[in-house]
């Protein structure tokens, strides 16, 4: 209780009730935020975790249509892979940041990566492609070779990898993307199922 002693006004103060109330509100808000935005989903590596937020739908959809879909998930690019601690720390930090923005409805129409995120992505491009973008034989004896090849964001040339040319909240007509929270979709509509099972039973009868 030492902790509360330090942050709460003395029992005698009129402020104490107010402060207790405010702390309760703050905690409540945090839980709300966390739940509302499914912050825990950040700890998953499943891209579907990202589309929990509809603001991630455009980037999800563009990724879905890119050649990287088969090779790299969101976290392969957007989360550091240099060590495990950093990976989860970054995820949690980002998750909370995105969640608060989302809950506050402060997301801009067109989202840009922050500088730290850009650095993470650049590292990840290299993680997979370093053999292709540098010449193995030169890295051995030309000191600046690797930095010459990597000191510029890859997407300044590969402008459409992987999210395409057009960015922004409204770049897709509908907000339809599979949400992990959605019940499994009905692949065969009920009327058709009915129809088919009827036919089946009919043919059986024959």
């Amino acid at each position, binding site marked *: 209780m030492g902790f509360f002693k330090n942050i709460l006004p003395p029992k005698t103060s009129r402020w104490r009730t107010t402060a207790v109330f405010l702390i309760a509100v703050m905690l409540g808000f945090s839980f709300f935020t966390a739940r*509302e935005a499914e912050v825990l989903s950040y700890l998953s590596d499943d891209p579907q975790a990202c589309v929990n937020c*509809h603001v991630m739908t455009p980037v999800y959809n563009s990724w879905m249509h890119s050649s990287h879909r088969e090779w790299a998930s969101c976290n392969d690019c957007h989360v550091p892979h240099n060590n495990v601690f950093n990976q989860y720390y970054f995820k949690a930090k980002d998750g909370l940041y995105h969640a608060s923005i*989302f809950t506050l*409805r402060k997301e*801009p*129409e*067109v989202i*840009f990566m922050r500088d730290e995120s850009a650095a993470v992505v650049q590292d990840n491009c290299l993680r997979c492609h370093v053999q292709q973008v540098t010449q193995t034989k030169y890295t051995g004896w030309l000191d600046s070779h690797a930095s010459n090849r990597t000191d510029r964001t890859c997407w300044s040339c590969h*402008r459409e990898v992987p999210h395409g*040319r*057009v*960015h*922004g*909240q*409204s*770049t897709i*007509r509908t*907000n339809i993307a599979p*949400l992990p*929270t959605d019940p499994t979709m009905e692949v065969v509509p009920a009327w058709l199922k009915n129809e088919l099972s009827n036919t089946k039973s009919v043919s059986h009868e024959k």
Partner: protein
Amino acid sequence: NRKNEAKFKYAPQVNIDQNEPRNAVWGKNFPAEYQSYLQTSDTGFASYQGGSKMRDMLEEDPNLVILWAGYGFAKDYNQGRGHYYSVEDIHNTLRTGGPTGPGDGPMPATCWTCKSPDVPRLMNEIGVAEFYSGKWADKGAEVVNPIGCADCHNAETMKLQISRPALIEAFEAMGEDISKVTHQEMRSLVCAQCHVEYYFNKNLPGKEGTPYLVFPWKDGMKVEDMEKYYDELGFSDWTHALSKAPMLKAQHPGYETYLTGIHADRGVSCADCHMPYASEGGQKYTDHHIQSPLNNINNACQVCHRVNAEQLRANVYDRQRKATENRLKLEEQLVRAHLEAKKCWDLGATEEQMQPILTDIRHAQWRWDYAAAAHGASFHSPVETARVIGGGMAKAQDARVKLARLLSQLGFNEEVPFPDIATKEKAQEFLGMDMDKMKAEKEAFKENLLPKWLEEAKAREAKMSSDKVAEASN
């Protein structure tokens, strides 16, 4: 829960008639679009040369008064502002004069064409040629709602549609069928109903005497194509008060110049920049606050350009400044040419001597106006704009070299003095324009005739009901 917001629920509140000119009625069904539309009433933004602020172009650049000597634009010309003001501004401009009643005033009814959704309503009710007939003042009580929904939308499906015959006829003249265009093209073509060069043809077979609205695209949309079109028609908008040249006025060839730019080349439409999507709580809608995209760079540009807003703004200003620099040079050359031609007439030049010179002046100023009149062109298509200005300079040079020779021949071998036209007032005075009289007439119109128009319209609209959906679809 915010996720549910994303599920679009559309429950129409009212049944809308295609001839419904009142935007507020449409707004009941489409509140997000209507609310954003209403923002075109904002006049708070000014950029280097545009924005929603009222900008007196004659004050900012008094050369224009001389270039348009003898024509309405020398009286009053402002940089356009939001669609919300389309009717108010045509009431206020000195160009429409101070009519005292039907049949009075300098302008034809055709002037209303691009100012209101009352126009398709009226055309529907009385016929197209009938709409174009008569004076501007004749239809003042009919046209009162500012540009809005019925100008661009089908009331039943909300699909984009063309409400103005001139555009459809222009496509026909080019041998194209406007009903075959793509949806993406429609996102520009609705604008091309108005943001285009036009003229009034009084000699259309079967419609002689009616100033029929025509877009001069039959031979193409380039500056040379339209010039050829007008030359072959022997058309001129007015005769210049100083040089007596048979002049052409280019009116905002916005769509035509846009088509020559890189954005059109890559399929970017007017609406992409001037009506970008916005979202509110996961609900996407088209931002109907049509305005300078520089007041909305995040949505309008950064969707495609991943660079910071200040850099994009600088790109735009840079192109505009470069166009302005040479445009102003061309203006000075043209002002001088008009003055020099006047001097020739004063010294007794003959029609025959003047004719080739006046043709050069006509062609030079046509190029200048084509490049200047669409305020967006220096960004929409900076390279074409520069090409056209260069072409104008070459014509102006032809004119002025000939003028120098003719002046010498007439005994005047020196520079024609340049008058003091440092302000709009000085330039108008130089031309002997009686501005006080025009302003007084305008005031009288606003006190006497205008209130009557508005009252009459109010009474008419009160009789139009907007059916509640519940009642209609019982």
